[in-house]
């Protein structure tokens, strides 16, 4: 009796969340799935939805901009995901040292990720300004004439990747907690065996934090493929579509040219892409992710 009552209470507690999921996530997802097989300009209301079968998907595979946005997004993900992970681990290692004022440093490195992306973007527009920006002024001290970062098609994407490093605070914090979970005695044992600091990092730290790397990698991949805000605010896909991220293209189709069916089809393709990459990482994880206390089960 008691058991079923507490069970019911449990379901009641998750009900608000569950309703939220149903109404604001699963419902719209189902709707967009249906829409992806239709043509709809939304202005004229739900009545004007016209089913076109696979036409949207057929058109997408002949769409130049679709391939351009895929290219931009893949380059961004392939460069930024590993780069941000390495940078985050390195900074987390530094922040894991025992020195005075460490709390302050941790605060400093975490702070940027608290600032809203739009505000950050506005700030970086100023930093990247070729005439007055602090970046090109600093380069000028060394006699380098900096490029027009965001207005030059060969630099804009790189500029956004560099900028992203500024906001890895969340990832750093997760790595930091991972690092703090590594037992001290393992390092001592390795040291007694004569392992240098690099060896200790590779053979003790990396395996011990591999579950954290695994988690951050998956989040990073999802985030990388869904990159939107900064490109929307700073370049709006330009110059010459060199920063036309997949999500930005999707947004433009949906809310600028109001081709909802087409945009829905695009979003389900993105869903499939992210799913595939996440599955690859998950499948490969048994080869490199080490869970403490897992040995007996294997």
């Amino acid at each position, binding site marked *: 009796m008691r058991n079923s009552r507490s069970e019911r209470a449990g379901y009641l507690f998750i009900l608000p969340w569950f309703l939220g999921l*149903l109404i604001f996530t699963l419902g719209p997802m189902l709707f967009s799935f249906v829409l992806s097989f239709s043509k709809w300009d*939304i*202005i*004229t*209301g739900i009545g004007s939805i016209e089913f076109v079968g696979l036409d949207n998907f057929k058109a997408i595979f002949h769409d130049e901009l679709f391939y351009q946005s895929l290219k931009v997004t893949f380059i961004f993900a392939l460069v930024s995901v590993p780069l941000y992970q390495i940078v985050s681990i390195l900074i987390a290692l530094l922040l894991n040292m025992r020195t005075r004022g460490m709390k302050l440093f941790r605060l400093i490195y975490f702070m940027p990720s608290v600032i809203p992306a739009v505000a950050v973007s506005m700030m970086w527009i100023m930093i990247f*300004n070729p005439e*007055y920006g602090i970046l090109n002024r600093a380069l000028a001290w060394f006699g380098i004439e900096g490029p027009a970062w965001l*207005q030059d098609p060969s630099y804009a994407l790189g500029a956004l990747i560099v900028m992203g490093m500024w906001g890895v605070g969340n990832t750093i914090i997760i790595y930091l907690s991972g690092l703090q979970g590594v037992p001290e005695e393992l390092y001592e044992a390795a040291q007694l065996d004569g392992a240098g600091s690099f060896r200790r990092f590779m053979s003790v730290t990396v395996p011990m934090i591999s579950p954290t790397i695994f988690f951050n990698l998956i989040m990073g991949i999802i985030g990388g493929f869904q990159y939107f805000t900064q490109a929307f605010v700073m370049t709006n896909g330009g*110059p*010459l579509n060199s920063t036309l991220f997949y999500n930005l293209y999707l947004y433009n189709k949906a809310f600028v040219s109001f081709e909802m069916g087409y945009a829905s089809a695009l979003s389900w393709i993105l869903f499939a892409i992210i799913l595939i990459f996440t599955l690859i990482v998950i499948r490969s994880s048994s080869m490199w992710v080490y869970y403490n206390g897992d040995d007996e089960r294997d």
Partner: protein
Amino acid sequence: MKKWSAGLALMLMFSMVLSACSSGSKDAGSSKEDNGAAASDKVVELKFTTWGELSADSVEKKLADQFNESHPNIKVTFEPVPGDGYATKLTTSLAAGQAPDVFLIGEGDYFKYVDKGVVEPLDDYIKSDSSFKTDIFQPDLLNMGKINDKLYYLPKDFNPLALWYNKRMFDEAKIPYPDEKWTWDDMISAAKKLTKKDDKGKVTEFGFNATKWEYPIYIYLWLNGTDIGNEDGTKAEGYMNSDKTVAAMEKYVALTKGDDRVSPTPQDTETLGGDSSMFMTDKLAMMITGRWVKSDLDKSDVQYGSALIPTGEGGDRASIIAAAGWAMNANSQHKKEAFELMKWLSGTEAQKARSEKGQVLPATVAELDQVKSTEVVDKPVIEMMDYAKKPISMRSANAPIFTEEFNKAIEKVLLDKSTVKEALDEAAKTVDSKIQK
């Protein structure tokens, strides 16, 4: 076992979604009926919206209050949308059937909304209302609101494009101010004299802004006897890439390139904070833009004047009127009352109230004459409206295709990725293939 329960849970969820949907729409339907039934004996509620105008003491808000006082059976709420979100908000609310009864549309989006059938034609309402005559409005503005001889909006205000010049920079270079005899070439040779470089050869002050904004480009093309598309916006081949267009655009792009350039590139303009802020800081001597720039200019201490946009070689003159008007939601529940509101919002009282604030030019003849008699700076601006033509966005629902491809072509040229001819040939081809779909 587990898989079964998961599947069951999923089915349950979907059925709940579906039932939620259907019950939701039922609710919406019944509440609408309630409104309809209540309309006859109770207060009718109306909503109207504009972009901007967010301050509490905005003119539109005051106009709404006054309307409510004089119409006890109608209650109007003013719901403005800030910034760039207007089109998105309006479109999604139209889709959801929640759109305001009366909304403002600009000349650029006007054709699109009418084409989708979400705007109510007004002719019947005007015919059956003897107290209201449309001849109080500028005829040009009324014509702009007509598609296939039906009127779809009542004018709110308008901004003809004109040439704005920086007096201090002209004085410094000892050049006479632009006058009505100027041709485009006169303007460019003046711009050459106004452009200044530093020791390293870097331009510090520009004579003219050859912007990437379409409107001034359209005007320039008209002066050269060409356009980016045919009259009804169904063909780009032979227009966007005609010899005349290519030759004109080559000259236009050259203004921003090379050692003797007189204009910033769009990229320069962006990094220097935009054309009006360059103008205010004496870094730009001339630009073609709308009158809305005035409210910014007046905040700075720049000394400026306005002039007619110069003529083309054949002596032709052209301009575009950027205008906004009140449109009625075709799905409004209370169209009769909505028309009352539109009459008020575009009528004489409202035009007076807005023009007293000095922000906009009144759309009515009498009030505009009043402004003409007192205004000095605005005189050429008002005169420019006699030369207004309809840009492609006011002639065809295909306009976004034209502008997108045209802009892309010009961007390519400016970044040295293509010649004008190649880029425009390709653009024309793309436009025509997209239209055929």
